[in-house]
């Protein structure tokens, strides 16, 4: 029995409605399927050229003009330290928005392709195994199995939080490389 069917069964038995069910938008990246809370999704766009931000972390491609607001675009492959790919006409940017303590924040993430919308209940999710101590696992909320496929549910809030440290580190790295370049010259 599929998860969904089991869920429906459970509902029928226990008489409860799908209270803890949430809808997730799923997308593909490097062969894996990821999901984000659909309430966080503002819109989906195609890729367009960004304006580079100087000395930004590598996963920040730059900013775009979204109907008058300046929105940063993040390359998710880079964020997850996955292999980079060329952007193609089917490359998709998912515009996400979250509430932070500073207010509402809007950001776009570049993914390979959009997959589907699923209704998933919390009770079906499992925690991600603490196998790898990685930046990546920071963003993973939980795992869920739908129709024998594993979907990795992401924590959008954490995803969109840019570590200040990383920016400063990035600057230092660049500065060091500059100095190295100069030293080479001499």
């Amino acid at each position, binding site marked *: 029995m599929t998860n969904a069917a089991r869920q429906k069964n459970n509902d029928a038995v226990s008489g409860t409605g799908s209270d803890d069910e949430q809808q997730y938008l799923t997308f593909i990246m490097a062969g894996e399927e990821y999901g984000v809370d659909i309430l966080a999704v503002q819109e989906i766009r195609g890729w367009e*050229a*960004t*304006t*580079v*931000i*100087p*000395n*930004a972390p590598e996963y*920040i491609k*730059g*900013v*775009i*003009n979204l109907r*008058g*607001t*300046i*929105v*940063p675009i993040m390359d998710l492959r880079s964020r997850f330290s996955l292999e980079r790919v060329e952007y193609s006409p089917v490359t998709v940017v998912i515009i996400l928005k979250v509430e932070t303590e500073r*207010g509402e*924040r*809007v*950001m776009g993430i570049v993914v390979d392709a959009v997959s589907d919308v699923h209704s998933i209940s919390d009770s079906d999710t499992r925690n991600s195994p603490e196998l790898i101590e990685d930046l990546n696992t920071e963003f993973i909320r939980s795992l869920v199995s739908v129709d024998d496929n594993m979907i990795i549910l992401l924590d959008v809030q954490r995803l969109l939080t*840019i570590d*200040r440290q990383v*920016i400063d580190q990035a*600057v230092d790295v*660049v*500065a060091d490389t*500059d*100095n190295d370049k*100069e030293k080479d010259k*001499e």
Partner: protein
Amino acid sequence: MSIDLSQFHQVFFEESFEGLDIMESSLLALDLTEVDAETINTIFRAAHSIKGGAGTFGFMQVSGFTHVVETLLDEIRAGDRGIEQDHVDLFLQCVDCLRGLMSDLQAGSEPDMTQADDLKSKFEAILAGGEVVAESAIDTQTGNQDISDGSTDDSGEKGWKIEFIPCEDVLCTGNEPYRMFRELQELAEEGEGNGLEVIPHLERLPELSSMHPEMCYISWTIIVRADIELSEIEEIFEWVVDDCDIRYQRLSECDLSTLETHQAVESSAEVTDIVVIDNADTEQEEINTVPLKTPVISEKIEKALEESAVKIAPKVEKKAVTKAAENTSIRVSIDKIDGLINMVGELVITQSMLGQLGQEFDVSRLQSLQEGLSQLEQNTRELQESVMKIRMLPISFAFSRFPRLVRDLSKQLDKEVELVMLGENTELDKTVMEKIGDPLVHLVRNSLDHGLESVQERTDNGKSRAGTITLNAYHHGGNIVIEVKDDGAGLNKERIRKKAIEKGIIAEDEHLTDSQVYDLIFQAGFSTADVVSDVSGRGVGMDVVRRNIAELNGSIDVSSKDGEGSTFSIRLPLTLAILDGQLVRVGEEVYIFPLVSIVESIQLEKSMLNNITGNQFVMQLRNEYVPIVSLQDIFNIDGEKKDLEGAMLVVVEGDTEKVGIVVDELLGQQQVVIKSLEQNYEKVDSISGATILGDGTVALIVDISGLNNKSSENKSEDQTQAA
């Protein structure tokens, strides 16, 4: 039905703060030798309004406090008392106190009444001073009124007999006896009585020919058979009691046998029977008097009054904490709004014209299209200007605090100072104005403290006793210029130089022009004050002032003349949201430099260049040396590293020094709308914001001062590394 009054609170607070400002400026403008009645009136009205509103909206503590203030003002207004310097000082303290109380209330917290109570007792002492004065006007009932409180005779019938003889012109005051009867009837019904008997008396009716239709010649006897209090009846007749003859008598004490009664009438008396009624005996009249208050004056209070009039306890400025308490509204003149509406109207016309053109377009109509587009450009520009103007307010709002400030400070420093304010109508953006307030205060304090000399010194040098501080504001180019000028001793070059050397800001043998020396005072940690006074001189001032002004995309300069005075000039853009920008290209990227920071742009020639260390270059610009930085380096932009010879250099000026920035190409100049980068991203070094260009792409705006700081940081890093 209960109405929630809190929806009116915000307006009340705003109005009260304005009223307090008016009180303050009027108090300062008072000439005690020739008191202007209208000014006193204005001050009174302001206090009165605040008291009334506070009472209405439930702020009883404020109302109670303001009451005493108002009472004293009322006496002065009525001529019962003269106004003295001590009073003015006290009133000014009250203004401060009320400001604090209002701020507390606005922020939703309990107001701290300590100062208010203290001031209140001082006022009460003044009011009680010497004479015996009733606290409130004596409310004498001059009418004839019974207070048959004595006899609580329950044996007789419950009720009252009222003789009501209205004055002839009672109707001309809009009063209507019928209304009173109706109220009486309602009252009687509540008291479970059996109605009202109204007996008209027509003795005074004159001949028809001599009758005046607007006059009331009828009087009435009213019998109320109900268990009600006299005070309730008196209330009904409250408005007419002074003009009319009204007598009350308990029914139990009346002899009603002589009366021929009629049924209660619903309308004015019909002329049915003319009855002559003997007036029953009335009780003795008693006049209501309010016991006169005789508060005791103690010597202590008087002494305390004297002392505190001199020493004003420094008050910590309470800032409204919650967001709701921030004043987020703005007053706009109707004209500006009307202008806006007109402009939008024209825009709509242009839009529909272009829309139509777009629907059935062919090349032959190209001319019309171009005309339409140019019309659109004009409409948009006008609309933009108009909208910006809405946020503009006259700078008098920022200047308004200075008369008080200068007055208090000059007293404190024991100097004579005259304040001149010019250009008060010059308008600038509301937010800019709010942020320029503190820097201006610092400059004025500075001038007063360090610039102006003491009276002795001035007269010794043949100057006028009183020093003059001039605040001036005017528009110049696309900016507003604000000057703070004093006719004091001027900046002491030697002292500044020495201090700078002491602090290691400049080298001993460094050659500086006069203006460069003056400029040193804006360096961090600089202060030539030997004694750090409470007023200024803590050394955290000038550099903060410059930084605050830079945050507003503005700049500040100082010029000075020995013995004659100094002038500080602040230059600010007219609005925060729009910037005049110079577009430049570096590699594939387009950046924007604020036009206001650009000194000049030149093409580099080898002869101008000097190589200092490794990769540090400077260029000679007339008689100064300007370090050269490459935007490509600082921003790590991809591309070939170009040769400096023949490169395009944009010389910019940040807070303090000039820097030459190498770019690939100068593109156009245009006005850009500043968009926030931090809203969705983070603060980026050397970038102050972003904008959207005509083609829809994003361009970043360079933060010139940030860039300068960054490049000097890099410079020092390189230097240490090289060493």
